[in-house]
């Protein structure tokens, strides 16, 4: 809503309060002012002049030489190029020394040899907004009404010595979509009085009811419809003052009748519509829901297909307006219009909103109806507009209003005690202070026992429905700054993180301390990406957005690594060739095509390693990431969560992973082992497709880890007796997994084995094709005594024998 400072001044005295001060006051009171803009874009020294004569320029076809009187007695010679300039016109004249917007100074000049002592200006040259100019002012010089006083500064004529406040209204304060609403607000803030505009009409003898009938069939959608009739109007341009008001508010002047309806809408917040009464047969108005398949051509010349949920004004036969949204072309006021049927009504906000949304048609009218208009202003606005049309279009208002009211609205009574107000806000306001505030708001009230205020909330403030709404009015007018700052009383309770929250923090810390960067990727992705790693989606479907912004962001992610790859490619394209990144976040799985319940949100941890883990330095060579770097991350995570004994890795071939370099990660749970994720290399074919170096991926489900993670550290006594260490190297078939060797060792050696570690793996010609040597280091220890060499040798012998028998292992000497 744009509010002209000068115009507002007509409804409330603004003396001693500049536009800037007013803006600050309103903003601090809860009506945010986005900006204050001067309507004068840099015009000075431009006055009203009279073109006494016009002659052709001797040396230029398109130029005229005019003699202009600007009221100083002196006659100015001005060369003008506008086609529409003519003798006898009143025009804006920029005299020598004048300034126009864009730092344009008017100097004495010669145009093709003829002296010009100034410039006759167009509306555009005076800085007026093109889009708000009436058609006839969009080209050529601005021709002013004949009655305009010679020599008057043009700023006064055009009303641009004014400032416009841009209100950024919250949805609850639609009462300020009117000048009167703003005036009431300023009144509440300043304690000044609101001056209401005159609505007095001098009727003719004829009766409106003889000319107009109103029937409302859709009472719920139209609780109040009223109409007046104005006879014998003369359609023409509005007077300058009216045009100025509309232009200041950002509305283009059209003709005196339409302009009045807009003017009164801005004054009262009540949209009005003027029909050409002679195009409404018998003056018959029937308000009903649209029929299926019915159409209407709206004022913007668009044919609109209507639906039964849309409310229409009809002439009993066909629609003549889309209620509250836009009028119909078939009943439009034109230059030929003589009689006016004027509508002022209350339409249901939801209905208007739905219609306007569906047709993509938002108008000043629909914006106001959507937020519900003040029921008590329907008739005053109608009267005010009828009065102004009669005055400005020289018409006659017939006697009486024809209306259909199915629901009247009384001011709401709301009670609140002083104690409640102070208890809610933490203030110590006195009864008098609260009385003063309600008084300034012009809310009638009574005070009962215990300082209980019973307030009759005016219908213009439809947002106030409960006691807390009144408390808010008190709070904002008392000033939020004046509310004290206190601490919550009562017992302090300690705050804490939940186990999953603490685990995520710990993981973040460990991983970043190990050199990985954390990323946050978009939850929205493309269907193609969600299909990349079926092993990570547990057979679930992706959740689709109903109206995505693009195909690339049309579904919810089903895995994190698909997003990490996108991030890695983005970085590679920016010459960040190596990356070690991780993400902790949710993925979304559903088994439904069309959701009837919420999808599963699973917490995941994922990481991606690509390129080099270290670059060439003076004392070390560059080293590329490999599978074991990725696996090491998983092992570390598992270790930190105290789950090492419960996790097993096994070779796996999930789709789009390297079939020979990928492991599944299984966690032992009370319900048995569960695969919680994978660690492996991205399939080389995809690496080629995305032009990536060898890339290693991890994705683990966190929910199972949260469950199983053990935060209990149980101290184990340090060993008192020495350990005996024995190394063996065995030659086995190349496809024997080192993990099965160590598992076999652990199984055979039993409790005396403290640890087994693979310290070397070797393949070479000497071993023969398809063979490898695995070197293991075993540590034996007894907790309560020193082991003898003999018993270790015996046990170790069993281990070796077992390996030989199980894996056909040969002991390497």
């Amino acid at each position, binding site marked *: 809503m744009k509010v002209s400072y000068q115009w507002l001044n007509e409804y409330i005295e603004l003396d001693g309060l500049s536009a800037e001060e007013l803006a600050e006051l309103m903003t601090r009171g809860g009506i945010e002012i986005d900006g204050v803009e001067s309507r004068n874009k840099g015009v000075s020294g431009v006055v009203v002049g009279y073109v006494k004569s016009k002659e052709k320029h001797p040396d230029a076809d398109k130029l005229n030489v005019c003699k202009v009187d600007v009221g100083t007695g002196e006659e100015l010679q001005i060369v003008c190029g506008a086609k529409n300039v003519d003798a006898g016109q009143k025009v804006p004249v920029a005299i020598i020394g004048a300034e126009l917007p864009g730092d344009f100074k008017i100097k004495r000049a010669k145009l093709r040899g003829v002296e010009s002592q100034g410039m006759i200006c167009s509306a555009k040259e005076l800085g007026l907004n093109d889009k708000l100019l009436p058609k006839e002012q969009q080209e050529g010089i601005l021709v002013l009404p004949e009655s305009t006083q010679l020599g008057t500064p043009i700023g006064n004529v055009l009303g641009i010595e004014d400032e416009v406040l841009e209100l950024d209204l919250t949805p609850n304060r*639609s009462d300020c979509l009117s000048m009167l609403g703003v005036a009431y607000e300023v009144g509440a803030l300043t304690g000044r009085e609101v001056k209401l505009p005159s609505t007095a009409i001098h009727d003719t003898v004829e009766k409106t009811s003889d000319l107009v009938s109103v029937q409302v069939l859709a009472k719920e959608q139209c609780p109040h419809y009223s109409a007046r009739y104005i006879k014998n109007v003369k359609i023409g341009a509005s007077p300058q003052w009216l045009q100025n008001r509309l232009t200041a508010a950002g509305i283009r002047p059209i003709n005196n009748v339409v302009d009045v309806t807009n003017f009164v809408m801005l004054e009262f917040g009540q949209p009005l519509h003027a029909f050409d009464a002679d195009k409404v047969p018998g003056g018959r108005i029937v308000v009903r829901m649209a029929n299926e398949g019915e159409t209407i051509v709206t004022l913007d010349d668009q044919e609109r297909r209507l639906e039964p949920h849309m409310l229409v004004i009809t002439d009993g036969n066909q629609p003549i307006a889309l209620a509250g949204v836009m009028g119909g072309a078939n009943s439009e006021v034109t230059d030929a219009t003589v009689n006016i049927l004027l509508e002022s009504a209350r339409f249901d906000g939801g209905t208007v909103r739905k219609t306007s949304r569906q047709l993509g048609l938002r108008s000043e009218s629909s914006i106001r109806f959507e937020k519900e208009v003040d029921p008590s202003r329907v008739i005053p606005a109608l009267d005010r507009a009828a009065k102004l049309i009669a005055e400005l279009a020289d018409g006659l208002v017939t006697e009486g209003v024809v209306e259909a009211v199915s629901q009247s609205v009384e001011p709401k009574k709301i009670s609140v005690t002083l104690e409640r107000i102070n208890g809610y806000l933490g203030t110590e306001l006195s009864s008098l202070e609260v009385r003063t505030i309600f008084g300034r708001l012009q809310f009638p009230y009574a005070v009962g026992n215990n300082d209980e205020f019973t307030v009759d909330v005016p219908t213009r403030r439809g947002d106030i429905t409960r006691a807390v709404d009144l408390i808010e009015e008190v709070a904002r007018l008392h000033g939020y700054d004046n509310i004290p700052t206190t601490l919550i009383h009562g017992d302090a309770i300690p705050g804490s993180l939940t186990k999953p929250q603490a685990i995520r923090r710990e993981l973040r810390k460990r991983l970043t*301390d190990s050199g990985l960067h954390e990323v946050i990727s978009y939850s929205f992705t493309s269907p193609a990406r969600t299909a990349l790693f079926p092993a990570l989606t547990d057979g679930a479907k992706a959740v689709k957005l*109903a109206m995505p912004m693009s195909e690339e962001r049309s579904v919810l992610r089903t895995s994190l690594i698909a997003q990490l790859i996108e991030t890695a490619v983005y970085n590679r394209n920016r010459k960040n060739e190596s990356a070690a990144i991780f993400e902790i976040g949710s993925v979304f799985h559903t088994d439904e095509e069309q*959701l009837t319940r919420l*999808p599963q949100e699973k917490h995941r941890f994922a990481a991606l390693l690509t390129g080099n883990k270290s670059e060439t330095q003076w004392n*070390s060579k560059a080293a590329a990431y490999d599978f074991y770097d990725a696996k090491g991350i998983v092992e570390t995570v598992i270790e930190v969560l105290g789950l090492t004994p419960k996790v097993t890795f096994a070779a796996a071939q999930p789709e789009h992973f390297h079939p020979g370099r990928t492991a599944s990660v299984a966690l032992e749970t009370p319900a048995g082992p569960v695969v919680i994720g994978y660690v492996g290399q991205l399939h080389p074919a995809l690496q080629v497709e995305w032009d990536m170096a060898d890339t290693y991926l991890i994705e683990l489900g966190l929910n199972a880890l949260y469950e199983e993670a053990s935060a209990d550290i149980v101290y184990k006594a340090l060993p008192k007796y020495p350990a005996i260490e024995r190394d063996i190297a065995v030659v086995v078939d190349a496809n024997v997994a080192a993990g099965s060797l160590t598992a076999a060792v652990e199984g055979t050696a039993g409790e005396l084995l403290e640890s087994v570690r693979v310290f070397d793996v070797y393949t070479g010609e000497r071993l023969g094709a398809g063979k490898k040597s695995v070197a293991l280091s075993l540590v034996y220890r007894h907790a309560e005594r020193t082991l003898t060499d003999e018993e270790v040798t015996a046990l170790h012998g069993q281990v070796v024998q077992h390996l030989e028998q199980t894996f056909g292992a040969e002991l390497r000497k």
Partner: protein
Amino acid sequence: MKARLEELRGEALQELQGVETQQALNDLRVKYLGKKGALTEILRGMGGLSAEERPIIGQVANDVRAAIEAVIEEKAAAFQQAETNNRLLAETIDVTLPGKKLPTGAVHPLNKVAQEIEDIFVGLGYSIAEGPEVETDYFNFEALNLPKNHPARDMQDSFYVTDEILMRTHTSPVQVRTMKAKEGMTPVKVICPGKVYRRDDDDATHSFQFNQIEGLVIGKGIRMSDLKGTLLQFVQQMFGEQAQIRLRPSFFPFTEPSAEVDVTCVQCGGHGCRMCKQTGWLEILGCGMVHPRVLEMGGYDPEEVTGFAFGMGVERIALLKYGIDDIRHFYTNDLRFLGQFARI
């Protein structure tokens, strides 16, 4: 004999003075003090001395030996020192060559900021509540006093999945879920961090995905002044002791009264600068007293208990805190961007 001893001392000391190497020193030790050395040689003549002379000459001989040994020790120590010095000199390295740094990764700046905020509130006795990012219309809107067709729904155009299911547009539904889970028990004191989604064309200051942290307190006798006090405590911990707050009346369907909260500009300290558009204030929070409708729908009696709620955008705070000029950096994850946050 005494004269010969004195002569030997003079000769030895003279010769020792010119010694340059450890080897030469060893040779001289043998020459003068060895078993077959000059001193031993002279002392062989001790047998021919009288009993009175013997102790005197013995004393002289010991003095001579001690004097020679002292010089030899001194020389030896000096040679040792010189050799050590030479060795260390030879071991000199270029200390200006780069060292081997420990790896340093960075927590994402949004999580870094979120954790900082969480820690402040945990310190104030709040717990952290979480909820789904895909929500029902009921939890996201209706239970927050935003019935269908409510004009305030304009403010947050949403990503719907179906008519009844959508990407949450704020973390407020977590507040509703928390209230329902509490079944009318007080006090409630939670913050709800998380991702939220609104239909917005991405540009330097808008992102369709962003993070919020909201807080909710419900209890007997919770006042708006408590809200002000809590927020002041928070901003002073977050932005420094000098930070002040300013509340402006505003509107949210789920609070009444509602306020926007400005904080003393972090850049200029309130004097006015480009960042704060010369106002000295930055808007960073929305807040208010929990609307009675919301309390009712959450299972509380608004006549018995009251509460306050507040919410802030993590991106906004991170942008201000680090002076970042484009919100999209948070989601494109350029490593050169992320790497800047690998420090305190």
